[in-house]
């Protein structure tokens, strides 16, 4: 999975030349294309996931990608089919079993955990059934950017465009249903339906990310950019755009690093994103510490109107 032996490239720090050198390899072009698509889709979907506090559901869906891919390899069909099929199916299972009533958070997390355990067990079974010829579950779990075909990139682009289109249509009601479900329901927003549709989008997005970062590092592209952006601003539009930017940046920087260094891609993407998160957190803590001392003498609660 390492690239060190291909050409032992070195950074010239002339960005144009470096990119020309990297993009001389078709597999690198595909890797950058796939990375761009996946990081944008995942950041957008992940932004809603973080706001909805469904990171556990997101993790479970990404784990479902593991048996999906290993079964696809076992059966000799396209791994993409396995990724998307299993992730979307797991999303529907979680949607059908969980959230029967209001405030069913505890029950939902139990259902989600159950699905996750079963998915991992199945994945392990499929790997052992395949016996040896599979070079090991490492690539499935921790990702790889080698050997992404143009066909796969096309599929990623089509699914990604679909996910973004649906998200654009349902975005505002979904935000309403996330922040304030009861009032949204009172205004005629189909809260339950939106929740199911969102889980399916989440399934599709995690399936996309699994093919780049591996199933265990999906959060590098789904959670970290959104969490970082929400640290930096509380304006919804701005923080969504920032999440997309951070996701895209970490992914491409990770790809560049992985091209020049003999260590796995998932590590670089995650580390870059994580560094950004830590910096954002420190920055906000510092900002609040300064702001706190400034607003010590805050005016008391204003009483609007005459009492």
């Amino acid at each position, binding site marked *: 999975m390492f690239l060190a032996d291909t050409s032992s490239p070195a950074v010239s720090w002339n960005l144009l030349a470096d990119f020309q050198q990297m993009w001389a390899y078709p597999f690198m072009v595909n890797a950058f294309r796939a990375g761009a698509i996946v990081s944008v889709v995942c950041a957008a979907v992940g932004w809603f996931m973080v706001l909805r506090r469904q990171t556990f559901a997101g993790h479970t869906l990404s784990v479902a990608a593991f048996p999906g891919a290993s079964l696809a390899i076992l059966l000799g069909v396209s791994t993409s089919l396995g990724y998307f099929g299993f992730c979307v199916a797991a999303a529907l299972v979680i949607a059908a079993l969980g959230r029967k009533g209001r405030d069913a958070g505890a029950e939902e997390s139990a259902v989600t955990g159950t699905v996750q355990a079963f998915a991992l067990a199945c994945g392990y079974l499929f790997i052992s059934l395949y016996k040896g010829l599979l070079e090991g579950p490492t690539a499935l779990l921790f990702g790889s950017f080698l050997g992404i075909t143009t066909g796969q990139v096309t599929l990623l682009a089509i699914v990604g465009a679909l996910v973004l289109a649906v998200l654009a249509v349902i975005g505002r*009601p979904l935000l309403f249903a996330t922040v304030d479900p009861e009032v949204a329901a009172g205004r005629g927003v189909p809260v339950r339906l939106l929740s199911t549709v969102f889980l399916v989008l989440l399934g599709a997005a995690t399936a996309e990310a699994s093919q780049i970062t591996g199933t265990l590092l999906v959060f590098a592209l789904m959670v970290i950019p959104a969490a970082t952006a929400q640290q930096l601003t509380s304006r919804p539009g701005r923080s969504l755009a920032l999440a997309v930017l951070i996701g895209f940046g970490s992914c491409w920087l990770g790809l560049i690093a992985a091209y020049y260094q003999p260590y796995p891609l998932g590590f670089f993407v995650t580390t870059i994103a994580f560094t950004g998160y830590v910096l954002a957190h420190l920055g906000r803590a510092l900002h609040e510490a300064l702001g706190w001392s400034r607003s010590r003498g805050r005016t008391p609660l204003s009483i609007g109107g005459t009492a």
Partner: protein
Amino acid sequence: MDPSARSTGPKSGAEPVLSLRGAAVRVGGRTLWSGVDLTVGAGEFTAVLGPNGVGKSTLVKVLLGVLPAAAGEVRVLGGVPGARNAAVGYLPQRRSFDASVRIRGVDVVRLGLDGDRWGIPVPGLGRAKRRAARERVAEVVELVGASAYAHRPIGQCSGGEQQRLLIAQALIRRPQVLLLDEPLDSLDLPNQSAIAALLGRICHQEGVSVVMVAHDVNPILHHLDRVVYIAEGGAVAGTPTEVITSETLTRLYRTPVEVLRTSDGRLVVVGQPEAPALHSDRHSEPGAGGGHVSG
């Protein structure tokens, strides 16, 4: 006074904003209340009172058209309930945002305006519309006196601040009726009276009819035009001085109830049946079931 006495009509001769005639509701095969007659005119402040579990929130749901009335006639803004919900603002029972919610107060208010609309606005188009929306948000935030903290993440606002922002959210589409379910619940006393004053002002100055389910009548007492006291079986509606009296409540609950007025003008209802009353002798259990007008 007859327990089902119909309150007098609205101040003007115009069609009432809300009217219930002999209304009843059944939930799970059980009749919660019946024979409720109520008329609310424009710009009137009405409180819905009664013991726990009697179906006060259910009344709000009937007015929203979420639950059908089992009998009688219910009209909201001249139509069947639910038909004109665009002109009805609704504030559900106490909900709060915890500290980690990274969405500003103004965004929550804005969602009340167009949060149910599908699709995203096309950049460059509808600029005037967007400016109008922004101005409306600022206007309604100013109305509830929340301008100082509306741009902070709502999770960092206090309970009273959040409640003001949620009232702004309910008001943003200029509703003619505002339905609130226990909006003062779990607020401290200064905030209770501040929010009550705000609602009184919205009602009497902006001409919005306010119907509010309340636990304690005292914080809102001097803003009220009308109260509805719901009991199992029936209800009484009228002005507070007509309804919150020993005679009326005794007849409504068919058990001795005493209404006392403290020196600072607060009302205390003694003997109201939270649980079925066992004693028929009026003076055998002084203070039993005492407390403020509660329900």
